């Protein structure tokens, strides 16, 4: 059964230096509050997995939490580059960041295979792309039935997956609504999971086909209102597109970034 913890306690207990951590949320429901707590607790040497690294990983990479990134699209959507990510890849600041790069389709399949307990995912992918030349985790196999050449990638099996959702009920069942992304697969693929939620309610109000993570499939739940800001939680608040644009200026400069981090994560962040 999922255990209700404070965000501080959940991160402290379930994420250790050196862990492989997946924090998902496809544009929607990105677990920023959890990311900031990881920064405050100065976790180090993490292998971060995420399809779309987004600002939350730019902040964690810039704060020195990560040594490796597995991803498929690393930008600030609609705005441009993630400058902290680029600084770490191009100039090793604040530390060197290794990257392993996939396509979205391959990562989606890899998470799904992880959730299914399989060692690999198979897809009709990477035809004619140079990505297999720079990522030794992309192989090609022959279908034993048709002979078709197919791409194979190892499944994603994180030590910890962290996602944000709208609601949990008091038993710890979680409801995810709207763009549900890859969150369910990320949680089911991981050894441990932390789910932050906007609120804990008596009744989830889930429809018959809703995306629900049952309590027994989740390790820890932490209440974190506005925990996805500046991304959004459908039904609660909108995406702060203006901040996404503003981030470009903050992240371009190391000093400006560090001041932002101090002011917004260390000084004024947290519960």
């Amino acid at each position: 059964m999922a255990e209700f913890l404070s965000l501080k306690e959940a991160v402290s207990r379930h994420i250790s230096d050196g862990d492989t951590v997946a924090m998902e949320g496809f544009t929607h429901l990105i677990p920023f509050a959890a990311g900031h707590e990881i920064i405050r607790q100065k976790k180090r040497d993490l292998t971060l997995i995420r399809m779309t690294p987004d600002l939350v990983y730019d902040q964690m990479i810039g704060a020195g939490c990560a040594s490796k990134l597995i991803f498929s699209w690393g930008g600030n959507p609609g705005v441009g580059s993630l400058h902290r990510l680029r600084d770490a890849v191009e100039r090793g600041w604040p530390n060197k960041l290794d990257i392993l790069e996939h396509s979205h389709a391959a990562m989606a399949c890899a998470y799904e295979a992880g959730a299914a307990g399989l060692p690999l995912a198979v897809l009709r992918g990477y035809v004619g792309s140079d990505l297999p030349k720079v990522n030794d985790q992309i192989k090609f196999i022959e279908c034993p039935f048709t002979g078709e050449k197919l791409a194979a990638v190892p499944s994603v099996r994180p030590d910890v997956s962290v996602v944000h959702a709208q609601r949990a009920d008091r038993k710890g069942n979680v409801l995810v609504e709207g763009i549900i992304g890859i969150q369910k697969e990320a949680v089911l693929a991981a050894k441990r999971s932390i789910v932050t939620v906007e609120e804990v309610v008596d009744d989830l109000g889930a429809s018959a086909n809703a995306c629900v993570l049952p309590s027994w499939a989740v390790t820890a739940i932490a209440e974190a209102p506005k925990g996805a800001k500046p991304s959004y939680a459908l039904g609660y608040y909108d995406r702060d597109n203006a901040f996404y644009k503003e981030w470009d200026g903050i992240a371009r400069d190391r000093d400006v970034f560090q001041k932002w981090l101090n002011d917004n994560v260390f000084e004024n962040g947290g519960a």
Partner: protein
Amino acid sequence: MSLEFTSSEMMSVTAARALTNDMTCFVGIGLPSEAANLARLTHAPDVTLIYESGTLQTKPDVLPLSIGDGELCESALTTVSVPEMFRYWLQGGHISVGFLGTAQIDRYANLNTTLIGDYREPKVRLPGGGGAPEIATNAHEVFITVKHSKRTFVKDVDFVTTVGFGRDGKARDNVPNIGRGPTVVITDLCILKPDPQTKELVVTSLHPGVTREQVIEATGWEIRFADELATTPEPSAKELEVLRDLKARTNAHHAGQQ
């Protein structure tokens, strides 16, 4: 008297016209999204737009800044998970057109959105492939829209993120279960299509007022022109009005959100 319009507007309107009502289009963010929604708001009200965040048959009132803005989900017929989107809907063969933008494109319509320079020591690190590598091979055909410049239109891309026809034009030959690949490239200067035999991109239509020299000057290889070179029809007053309205409310929406 002809209307006043910019080359960007010419590009968006021309790209929008490539879509028809019966198409199911997997839409990339940016220029493709602008064109696809313009098509939906003008001549193709029933075109099916799909974004990789999982939104099926979406009808946003403003253009999304990101691939997963709330607007896309709230106006969609339904929203599915990302693995379902890529595995069932795209790989399953239900997408007729993949509509993509790019940072670099070469003469065989290969796209580079990964980096400029060497992979391990990039001059410029770009965001990466995202959904494009498989959109380009699993959609039945691919439309590309991108601004025309020598920096973008290079003879050989630095990195093939997303295959057009490969570095020799033959990457799709004898590959089973693969789409036709890029069938049209629409820029702010012209329309290009692959030569049926060699697959090299050839200019088939110049936008009004654009000269061959301008295209030659903006292209990083010895660009060829079709024997029967057309002139692209100008945007109509209605198309310009709808496009300008769409952009104005999009800008107001993204600037005003706090």
